[in-house]
């Protein structure tokens, strides 16, 4: 395997950014049914940064499980989850934020998709990651902004 997670060690480093005080803490995020209305940071997401987070194996590594046609220059898109092409036609920005923050709230408890901004994860997390989320609040906003660009051609 390990192409999936080659950057596991690096992720530890990247994932250890200190949370910004004005960010909504992972334990304070409010779900309204299947969406999160409020931005986690108040700073608009940057879709270009979001695309990098999607592809980076140490960050979102979303391509491990999802194909995304506009990112076809990246090698090896997985198919554990559905293709994200046209995802902005299927879900609102608020719903996409909720999916990225904690997919278990939107799909089922059984989903294999990790919760990217939650502390409600598996047992025995690596010591240096305890209490840390996979993505920062701003990275979630960036990813949501990028997902918003994934519309089916008219």
């Amino acid at each position, binding site marked *: *395997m*390990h*192409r*999936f*997670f080659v950057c*596991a060690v690096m*992720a530890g480093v990247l994932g250890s950014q200190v949370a910004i005080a004005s960010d909504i803490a992972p334990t304070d995020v409010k779900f309204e049914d299947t969406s999160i209305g409020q931005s986690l940071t108040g700073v608009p997401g940057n879709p270009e940064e979001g695309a990098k987070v999607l592809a980076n*194996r140490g960050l979102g*590594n979303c*391509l*491990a*499980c999802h*194909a995304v*046609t506009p990112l*076809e220059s990246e*090698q*090896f*898109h*997985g*198919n*554990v989850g559905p*293709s994200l092409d046209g995802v902005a036609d299927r879900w609102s920005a608020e719903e996409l934020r909720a999916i990225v923050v904690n997919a278990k709230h939107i799909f089922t408890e*059984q989903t*294999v998709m*990790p*919760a990217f901004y939650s502390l409600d*994860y*598996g*047992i*025995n*997390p*690596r*010591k240096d*990651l305890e209490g*840390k989320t*996979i993505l920062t609040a701003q990275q979630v906003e960036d990813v949501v902004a990028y997902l918003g660009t994934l519309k089916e051609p008219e």
Partner: protein
Amino acid sequence: SSLAVVAYADPVDDSLEIDGTPIITRAKAPEGHPFDEVLSGWLFREAETRATEADSFANPGMLSVERGEEIWNTVEGAAGKSCASCHNDASETMKDVGAHFPKWDAAANKPKNLELQINHCRTEQMGAEPYKFDAEGQVALTTYIKHQSLGTPVSIDLKEGEMQSWWDKGKELYYTRTGQLDFSCASCHEQSMGKYIRADHLSQGQNNGFPTYRFNTGGMVSLHNRFRGCIRDTRAEMPAAFSDELMALEVYVTWRGTGLSVETPAVRQ
């Protein structure tokens, strides 16, 4: 589009024979199994990897078998004995033995795998030091002994001692999500079996080929090394090799592969 997405891929429809020995790569699952059919990891690998395993002259894992044979015949320890001093010709005395580990160890009151059995013979019979986890000799001897069961269907006896309660514990662990990424063994090897995670075609995570030769690392990989690697990839702390957790997992995962032939040394990517 030209997108390099690998489509959902079924395990291949191919059959395996090694040195004239037919290898069972698909078997009817035992009762209570989540799948109807248990499938060898061989069916999920690329054609080239499959071909390398099928040809024991090309299989680099056979070097580990040869090394194991050398150690088998080498005197070590205070008692002045080799494995062969007591067990003679492994092709007779160890035939099919490896297909039925782990077994119950009444004295230790827990299951033992081949590695622990080898260490037991070294300390109790030979007056030698036990091997440290993944010492070259441990992997080579384990590979050599397992290879004497090539083609034999895996089966373990859950009625011995408290094997059943270790199976129960192993099952619980198999479905427990670990680490920051929150995956259980089942997330990948049951729910996502047959799919691609990045470039990796997910198999059922069977252990009938262990120790296996891996192209990625260019060497042999023991079972507990693989378990630890899979757990590390959930971004969790890794349990120690031969810990109660990993022994319970070995009992349960071995049972999940009941009926598959031993393929040691299997070739994986």
